[in-house]
């Protein structure tokens, strides 16, 4: 069943690959190129799941995450964080701020797709 997925990342090629993977799974995909646009898109489009990069211009992934979690109307939004910063501290920070899952770059496409499935299943 189709879900709305928002991809927030400033790396065009990564966006292309994520978009392809999510659309192949039959989801409705939107893209934002920076944190601010991403947060706005979450508010307007109410995606079921956000694939959120950490290092982005204007507003970084953690800030977007915090803003989303601070808004009770967005409580059901699943958030999967992707980052090229592989340190454990970053991962813990993301999880502590309320991310549902955390994947380091480069990621395995299979694992990503599985994780997205898993997260979307829990929304029902």
């Amino acid at each position, binding site marked *: 069943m189709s879900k709305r997925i928002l991809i927030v990342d400033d*790396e*065009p*090629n990564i966006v292309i*690959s994520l978009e392809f993977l999510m659309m192949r799974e039959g989801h409705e995909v939107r893209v934002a190129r920076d944190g601010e646009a991403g947060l706005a898109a979450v508010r307007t489009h109410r995606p079921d799941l956000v694939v959120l990069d950490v290092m982005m211009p204007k507003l970084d992934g953690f800030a977007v995450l915090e803003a989303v979690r601070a808004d009770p109307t967005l409580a059901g939004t699943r958030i999967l964080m992707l980052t090229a910063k592989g340190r454990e501290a970053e991962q813990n920070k993301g999880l502590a701020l309320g991310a549902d899952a955390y994947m380091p770059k*480069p990621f395995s*496409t299979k694992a990503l797709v599985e994780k997205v499935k898993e997260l979307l299943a829990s929304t029902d």
Partner: protein
Amino acid sequence: MIMTGPFIVSVSFVYLGLLFAIAYWADRRADQGHPVTGHPTVYALSLAVYCTAWTFYGSVGRAADSGLGFLPIYLGPTLIALLWGSLLLKMVRVSKSERITSIADFIASRYGKSQALAGLVTVIAVIGVVPYIALQLKAIAWSFTILQHYPEVRMPDHTALPLWRDTAFVVALLLAAFTILFGTRQLDASERHEGMVAAIAFESIVKLVAFLAVGLFVTLGFLGLGGPEPPNPVENARLATLLKPLLEPSLAPFQDWFAISLLAGLAVILLPRQFQVAVVEISDERHLRRAIWLFPLYLLLINLFVIPIAIAGLTTFPDGRVDADTFMLTLPIAFAQPWLALLVFLGGLSAATGMVIVETIALSTMVSNDLILPALMRHWRRQPPAADLGRLLLDIRRGAIVLVLVLGYLYYRFAGEAYALVSIGLISFVAVAQFAPAVIGGLYWRGGTREGALAGLLAGFLVWIYTLLLPSFARSGWLPPAFMDSGPGGMDLLAPLALFGLVGWNEITHGLFWSLTANLGAFLLVSSLREPNAVEATQARLFVDALRQRHPTSLPLWRGRAEIAELMALTERFLGVARTREAFARHARARGIADPARLPADAETVAFAETLLSGAIGGASARVMVASVTEEEALGLDEVLDILDEASQVRAYSHELEQKSQALEAATADLRAANLSLTELDRMKDDFISSVTHELRTPLASIRAFSEILFDDPRLDLAQRKRFLGILVSETERLSRLVNQVLDLAKIESGHADWRTEAVTLQEVIEQAVTATGQLVEDRGIQVRLDLPAQPALVWGDRDRLIQVLVNLLSNAAKFAPAGSGELGVKLSQSMARGTDPGDPPWRVCVSDNGPGIPPAELELVFEKFRQATIDGAKPAGTGLGLPISRQIVENLGGHIWAENAPQKGANLCFELPAHPVDPFDHKAPL
């Protein structure tokens, strides 16, 4: 006027009474705080106790006998006085701080406060000096007898008189009384005897006046103004022979002159009485300055008329019936000058009594402190002593005074007219000269040891006995005379007057030579057998370095357990309760402690108590006494040397230390700064690595994702496949570019980059860079304008690196310039000459674009690694290392690079490089 016995005795009594009065008055003044000894002239005059009756009467005798032979006895002290500024000053300083009471105490202190050494010095001094005291008594008795026969000139015949009629005995008793009264007023022998010194200074004036009076009388006579007639040698051949040494003075033999000068020079500081007046009695070390010239002047004055008097004597008494030693007295008698004769008698009496008094005080201190007290202390170990030892000690010292005088008198009675008495003056000097190696060596050499000093003194003393004392006995008929010439058992080599075949020297010179040789040899040899121990090293420092400190103090080199109460009790037994309490209270106050009973019983306090006792009983005995109430732990030499080193270095190098600590502070600050910058560098390195990994993961993520997509999904259409493969290729390129640039940057930053330096024309560089970026520019539809001067812009640099910079700037600008309508400009110009730079102004290259420009806050940041400005919110392609690398290159070539916003639109990235002078013979240069 008849000089009857009773008259002379009365005059003598009146004179001695005057001495008592002067001494009493001076003591009173000192008690009131106005000591006459505070005057440097009094000090210098008191040193003239050196001139005894032996010199007062004997100089003329010596001159009549051997011409100028009397002179070295005064020449030596005059020459040695030149060294007083160091030698005597050291002795004074050490003695004051250590409360040294005598020459024996001085030597014993220097070599570790050894009782044995002090005892030996005392024995030598007593044996050497008591006959000398006898000589003074004899001079008094003689002069009394001669004067008594006035107006007849008659030599005394030595019929033994009953004691009560023996002038010498009566005088000895009087002197004992004087010495006891004014010499033992207080127990502390290191304290001054103002009364005695004042009396001695007065006596020095009397004997000088008497001598000058006779001299003037004789000289006036020679000038035809009365008195003796000048001699006429032609008239009397025999007289001519007699006067020959006087009228044709000669310095030969030189070795005798040298030896006697040396001897007298040493005696003037080493004789117990000289040590007493010069070192113990000095009230202010600045008095030495006057004594250094006044004392030699005194000696000069008292010798001025020796030769005229001798000539007058020989002329007046040509038959040899009158002893030349009595000319001083017999001349005024012969010329019927009773008052002059009486004055001479008083002068001689002054010379004799002065010597006897001071010598007796000095010897009695030594005998009581260094011979009797150690014996008593051994006795006390078995049987505890009485509580008040102070009284006992004073009584012992008084007893010693009587003992010394009685010994002197007995020797006089026993030796009578014997050679052993007459010749004792110089022989006595040789005995005390034995102290010289230990004293002078101890003041200038740190290596001397107790055994060395003992061995030297003993060797010198034994040789002295053998070469001088025994022969004088032999000449007196007390030993078989044959022994003098042939040595014991006929061994000529050991003959006392020609030891080891040394003949032709004066007996004194011979004895001095051999005794000092043996002494010095044994001192050095035995001292070299071992290193000085802890106590010796401490004292050596104190003595040798005495001039470095105004008040030398011994370091508290002591470790052990002591009770303050016991220390005080010990001191009280000798010094009395009042003085002890007062001294300890003073010491406590100096250390900032109110109650003396609360003084810590530490090294400093123990040293204080020991020094306090030293003044009363001598250093060696004080050490033993203090040791008896404390439990001292032996300090090793190493520890002592450590402490000494530390102490001397602390003084000597405190300045250096200060400097070093400043340097240290500076170094610490530097290190802190370095550490800070290292921490910063470390943080930057971490950031860099973190950034690099991030930048590597990003293309890797794309590569992996698309590879997996392509691999997993065989049904992808061709267009999509191509698109994904294109992304793969470009991301791979990006990855390798990134790796290359990171390596490149690391290479430049670490300084390992190879730089080719050559003259480069910037026009060529710009053209090549534009060609290299042509494809990129063309793809984005961007125009490039070049603005280059005709004149070749020569710089000194690496062509390839400069092209790299230009390519970076151009591709950077191309990224920011809007696609399609983008315009790039490259302008080369010679910048305005700035500052005081000599030579040509630098070349400037600016690359401009018509893009969005750089936010002002980021103008500087664009040259930092992985700092990328965003273009319309999106991230530009590129590694984020191009500009940092460019900056490294430009700065390496001595230029600088910066970013600025163009007035209209877009950014300007510019760099300047120093111009390379154009070589006029370069074919590229315009003619």
